[in-house]
């Protein structure tokens, strides 16, 4: 197919090369420098999509981010699929494959088109809510088909071949937009020496200057752009980021920029020097000052059938002609409310094609551009507008008539004009999206007929964003903003040096949003306000009639400005229509909030490198490699990877977890096992007040703990609820080593600092984490002493080294601290060595352990063994609502300590003193085969009508090879007084388990085994 709309010359494309691409399976050709949109227009492709709701054919309307229709799906392979790309923002590359997003099964011939023709009756506003929301259970079914036919793009089903980066950037001045205002601002700030980032979303920087008719210093505007960019590129303190969209403006001048680095080259990032490069980068910018130079979007007029392909924004027509050498039709009718749009007609005529007429809503159009049009012999119809477009798949004509703007009525007879293109302009809407992200509501200005942003601290706006449109003023405004931003961040500003621009004599625009029609809005042809969401003027009128007066409610009722569109073209027109219907002014109707992101960002860019193997940190102990080599299955405990159990190959197959854990449990109870306990939190505490501090943060007493001794401690919050537990050893009079649970280590250290820094700064004590410094190995079981004796010089005699003592010496030739504490109930030694030695010490123990059948065990076995002893895990058997008394740990509460330690006062509040609180008990299932579910609810009367009163729940439950049955820890209301009673656990599958309340200590209640 030939590029029938391509002009013989002009534009910024590279005509020496051709690129081939496909759209909806058909092949076309374009040039480097084209966007997908300009190439489609060059090839005469009218229909690019079907509309969201009515399934009407749609064509390209705009030339930039505001494009509502040409939202396409990219990708030739499943893995390369990218949804919701605007064809106007996608650079053409060789081999590009694109499809329409909407229009299943095909854009040309659409199934839903039938419904679309019936239109109004079938899908009035609020249709989805009213029709499909009831019955609620059917929504899933409706949704599938509505989504499929509506088409919101689809995500790839295969792994993304690309990689993405986040970059944390800091600068003095961030300039967003590299049109005339942004370039001037960047030059002002850059020359002052400030660290500047200039970001622009287009393929080329320059903005409107790239297709401007204006002369700067008597030369084409793009020459000045080239010089400005060259200067900026030469400044060390300036970073230029083309193809970079500022998508979100967050608190305190934190802006996220999405830089597309390879999207213009290929559908997946090509390798550079044989190495992968990031497809896109998300720059997380913290800026001293932000200059918004985001320009303005032209506002299309709202008239009948304004969605038929061939209806374009006036400015887009100029852009396609001047920048891409594409004229998107043959016969043009222009409908305008202002001078500026005359450029489109002038450009059209200069391309050698026919301008049928200009319908100018102003009764007496005057101004330089108007005169130029007259001079070219273009027919101008004053006081008129296009009422309605004709045609279905392409514009075939326009009905034009005089309109009475005040009275909102057609005041003359309509004239039908033959044409294939209608360009319209209702003036400009400043692009205030980013300013709006900060929460500041914009202000309506009658003089420019648009909203301008209200600016929070640290942000400036310049040029079109502020409603300044004349090129000379825009440059000056940009320079001023850039200078102020640099000055605010401490730089000496330099004198302005800007190109000369002749002033233009412009006529005043009039306010025109919706064009009146002979028929009332509800009966006339559809007048589209939001093309992407298929919202019509009639829909807004209906919304106001149904009582939705706030523009936010109108928006939700009609879906105006939803989704990826974010109201770029439609919102102001929509508000104007709502205002007309309600008899109010636009500012009285309010304004809308624009939210991040400005344009869609791929998940890849959002995720960056935080995915796959780098999704989350994995913390390893110094012995990790041994565990891996010995087939450990791992469990996540916080960010730690801990061996869960070590399955062995037995009789030609791997043990199940149940079998492995049973074997490991028996080994510890009968012989000896070894556990990597390095993940335990360890805090070194020094200072003369260390002991006093411990007494305040633990519930039990510390005054008399002697050097060489260890004590179990329970920590509460001031509400009396258990927060963590662990052992603390007295290393010397002013020196202690505290342990905390693996998951709670960081929180406990912060807790100690909190109390020290805020409540008791007078206490002389310091806390330092030594968790990573020490590796910890627990050797436990009846044979533990014999094994350890082989590799240590420490006297292990039961009198010399008692239970709850610690000693130092060497283990396997390495300096070690050994703690005789037990979490299994068996004889146990916790060996601590500097982590760099740990692997060797572990391997030495394993080698010596062979003759004792030393068995490495993991966290699951640890849990079974500790639960058999009734030892709690904070956070599993407690949940922030359990007191030490609830745990039956009265022995660990020092009520008579002199200082009112953390949690003490709360234990006497009426609620914590209740006797029917949930209390820790053991549960023995009647059926020994049953292992109760953790979290299962406990009831006293299984015959009670549903809902049954729930009296407690299971906190820990395992199978015990030692007991030969399942067993559990649970919290039960008043449980400590209910020993021997039967409780019931109704399960989801209808089964009801029976269990007896027993002591939580199932094995060795007197604690003789750990004390041998």
């Amino acid at each position, binding site marked *: 197919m030939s590029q029938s709309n391509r002009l013989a010359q002009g534009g910024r494309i590279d005509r020496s090369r051709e690129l081939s691409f496909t759209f909806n399976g058909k092949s076309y050709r374009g040039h480097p420098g084209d966007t997908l949109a300009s190439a489609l227009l060059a090839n005469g492709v009218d229909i690019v999509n079907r509309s969201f709701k009515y399934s009407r054919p749609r064509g390209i309307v705009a030339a930039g981010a505001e494009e509502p229709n040409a939202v396409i799906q990219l990708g030739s392979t499943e893995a390369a699929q990218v949804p919701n790309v605007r064809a106007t923002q996608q650079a053409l590359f060789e081999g590009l494959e694109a499809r329409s997003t909407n229009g299943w099964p095909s854009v040309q011939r659409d199934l839903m088109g039938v419904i679309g023709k019936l239109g109004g009756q079938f899908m009035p506003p609020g249709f989805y809510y009213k029709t499909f929301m009831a019955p609620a259970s059917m929504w899933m079914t409706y949704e599938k088909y509505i989504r499929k036919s509506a088409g919101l793009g689809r995500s790839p089903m295969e792994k993304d071949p690309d990689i993405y*980066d986040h970059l944390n950037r*800091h600068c003095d001045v961030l300039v967003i937009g590299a049109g005339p205002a942004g370039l001037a601002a960047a030059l002002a700030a850059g020359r002052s020496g400030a660290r500047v980032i200039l970001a622009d979303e287009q393929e080329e920087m320059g903005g409107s200057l790239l297709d401007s008719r204006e002369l700067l210093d008597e030369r084409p505007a793009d020459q000045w752009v080239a010089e400005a960019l060259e200067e900026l590129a030469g400044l060390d303190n300036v970073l230029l980021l083309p193809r970079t969209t500022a998508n979100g403006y967050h608190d305190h001048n934190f802006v996220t920029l999405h830089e597309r680095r390879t999207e213009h080259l290929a559908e997946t990032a090509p390798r550079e020097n044989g190495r992968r*490069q990031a497809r896109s980068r998300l720059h997380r910018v913290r800026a001293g000052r932000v200059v918004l130079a985001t320009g303005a979007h032209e506002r299309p007029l709202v008239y009948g059938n304004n969605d038929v392909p061939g209806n374009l924004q006036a400015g887009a027509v100029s852009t396609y002609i001047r920048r891409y050498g594409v004229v998107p039709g043959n016969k043009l009718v222009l409908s305008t409310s202002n001078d500026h749009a005359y450029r489109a007609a002038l450009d059209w005529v200069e391309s050698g094609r026919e301008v049928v007429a200009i319908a100018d809503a102003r009764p007496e159009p005057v101004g330089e551009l108007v005169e130029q049009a007259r001079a070219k012999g273009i027919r101008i119809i004053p006081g008129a507008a296009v009422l309605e477009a004709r045609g279905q798949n392409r514009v075939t004509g326009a009905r034009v008539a005089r309109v009475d703007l005040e009275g909102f009525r057609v005041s003359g007879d309509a004239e039908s004009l033959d044409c294939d293109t209608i360009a319209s302009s209702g003036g400009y809407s400043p692009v205030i999206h980013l300013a709006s992200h900060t929460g500041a509501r914009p202000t309506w200005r009658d003089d420019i007929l648009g909203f301008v942003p209200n600016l929070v601290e640290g942000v400036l706006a310049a040029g079109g964003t502020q409603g300044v449109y004349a090129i000379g003023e825009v440059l000056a405004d940009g320079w001023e903003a850039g200078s102020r931003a640099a000055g605010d961040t401490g730089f000496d500003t330099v004198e302005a040096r800007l190109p000369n621009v002749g002033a233009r004599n412009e006529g005043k625009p009039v306010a025109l949003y919706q064009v009146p029609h002979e028929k009332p809005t509800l009966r006339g042809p559809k007048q589209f306000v939001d093309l992407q969401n298929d919202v019509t003027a009639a829909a807004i009128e209906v919304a106001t009639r149904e009582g939705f007066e706030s523009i936010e409610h109108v928006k939700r009722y009609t879906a105006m400005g939803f989704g990826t569109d974010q109201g770029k073209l439609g919102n102001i027109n929509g508000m104007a229509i709502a205002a007309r219907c309600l008899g109010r002014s636009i500012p009285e109707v309010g304004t809308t909030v624009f939210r991040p992101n400005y344009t869609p960002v791929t998940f890849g860019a959002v995720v960056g490198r*935080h995915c796959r193997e780098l999704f989350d940190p994995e913390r390893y102990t110094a012995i990790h490699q041994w565990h891996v080599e010995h087939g450990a299955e791992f469990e996540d405990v916080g960010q730690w990877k801990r061996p869960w159990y070590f399955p062995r190959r037995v009789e030609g197959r791997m043990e199940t977890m149940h079998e492995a854990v049973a074997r490991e449990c028996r080994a510890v109870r009968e012989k000896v096992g070894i556990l990597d306990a390095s993940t335990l939190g360890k805090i070194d505490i020094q200072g003369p007040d260390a002991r006093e501090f411990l007494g305040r943060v633990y519930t039990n007493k510390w005054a008399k703990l002697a050097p060489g001794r260890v004590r179990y401690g329970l920590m509460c919050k001031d509400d009396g609820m258990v927060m963590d537990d662990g052992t603390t050893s007295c290393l*010397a009079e002013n020196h202690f080593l505290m342990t905390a649970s693996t998951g709670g280590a960081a929180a406990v250290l912060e807790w100690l600092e909190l109390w020290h820094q805020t409540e008791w700064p007078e206490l002389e004590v310091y806390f330092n984490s030594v968790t990573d410094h020490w590796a910890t190995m627990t050797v436990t079981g009846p044979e533990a002493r014999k094994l350890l004796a082989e590799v240590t010089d420490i006297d292990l005699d039961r009198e010399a080294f008692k239970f709850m003592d610690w000693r130092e010496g060497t283990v396997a030739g*390495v*300096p070690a601290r050994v703690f005789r504490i037990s979490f299994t109930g068996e004889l146990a030694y916790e060996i601590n060595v500097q982590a760099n030695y740990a692997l060797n010490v572990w391997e030495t123990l394993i080698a010596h352990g062979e003759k004792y059948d030393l068995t490495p065990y993991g966290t699951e076995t640890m849990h079974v063994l500790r639960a058999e002893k009734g030892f709690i895990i904070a956070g599993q058997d407690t949940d922030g609502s359990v007191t030490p008394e609830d745990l039956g740990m009265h022995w660990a509460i020092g009520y008579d300590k002199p200082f009112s330690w953390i949690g003490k006062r709360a234990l006497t509040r009426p609620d914590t003193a209740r006797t029917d609180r949930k209390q820790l008990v053991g549960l023995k299932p009647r059926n020994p085969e049953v292992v109760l579910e953790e979290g299962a609810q406990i009831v006293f009367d299984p015959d009670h009508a549903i809902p049954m009163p729930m009296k407690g729940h299971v906190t820990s439950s395992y199978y015990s090879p030692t007991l030969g049955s399942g067993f559990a820890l649970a919290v039960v209301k008043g449980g400590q007084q209910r020993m021997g009673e039967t409780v019931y656990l109704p399960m989801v599958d209808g089964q009801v388990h029976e269990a007896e309340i027993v002591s939580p200590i199932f094995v060795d209640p007197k604690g003789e085994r750990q004390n041998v």
Partner: protein
Amino acid sequence: MSNSVDDKVKTFDTRTEAKVPVESPLAYSYRRSGAPAPGEGSGVVVRERPFLGHLVLRGGAIILDEALREVLDISLPGEPQALVFDASGERSVQWISPDEWLLIVPGGEEFELENRLREALGDAHFAITNIGGGQTLLELEGEAVSELLMKSVIYDADPHHFPVGKGVTTVFAKTSVILRRSSETRWELVARRSFADYIYRWLLDAGEEYAIGIVR
């Protein structure tokens, strides 16, 4: 072992002169993830400096400064984010918080140093904690280091805004590191042992486009 025991604080030499195999925090990572050799095109070169002596000093700046000058002939950096080296460049002290400094010395010196500092500090209120087994130091050099850091840490690592002699604790990917600049060309990361593998794998991944090389 020359462990000193007074009745107040228990110091302990966790190092031994015996020929016992030691493993740096990255030993496992090298074996699992490999260590690409630096080449001519390497924009980033990483070298681990394992087994150094790391001591945390806690206390008032004035007393610690006196003791440090007496024992090591280094002035304590009193300004936030400051990092100073001794004349040899082998020993450094870094401000961590108003009452906390990190002292890094050649491996093997730390125990004797701790004892001498304790002696110099006498009865003052302070704490010294040996954390050498729990940390490792990575040196980063090359023209792409600052961009690699930009991808990794949230702190402003622009070389113009992070002068030599600065050090901060900050967020690295989803964990934390101490980031320091020891010379015009050299940056340092002090990583916790258990996170070292994650940090190493992150550096390899993010550094791929700069042909990152590891010196072993």
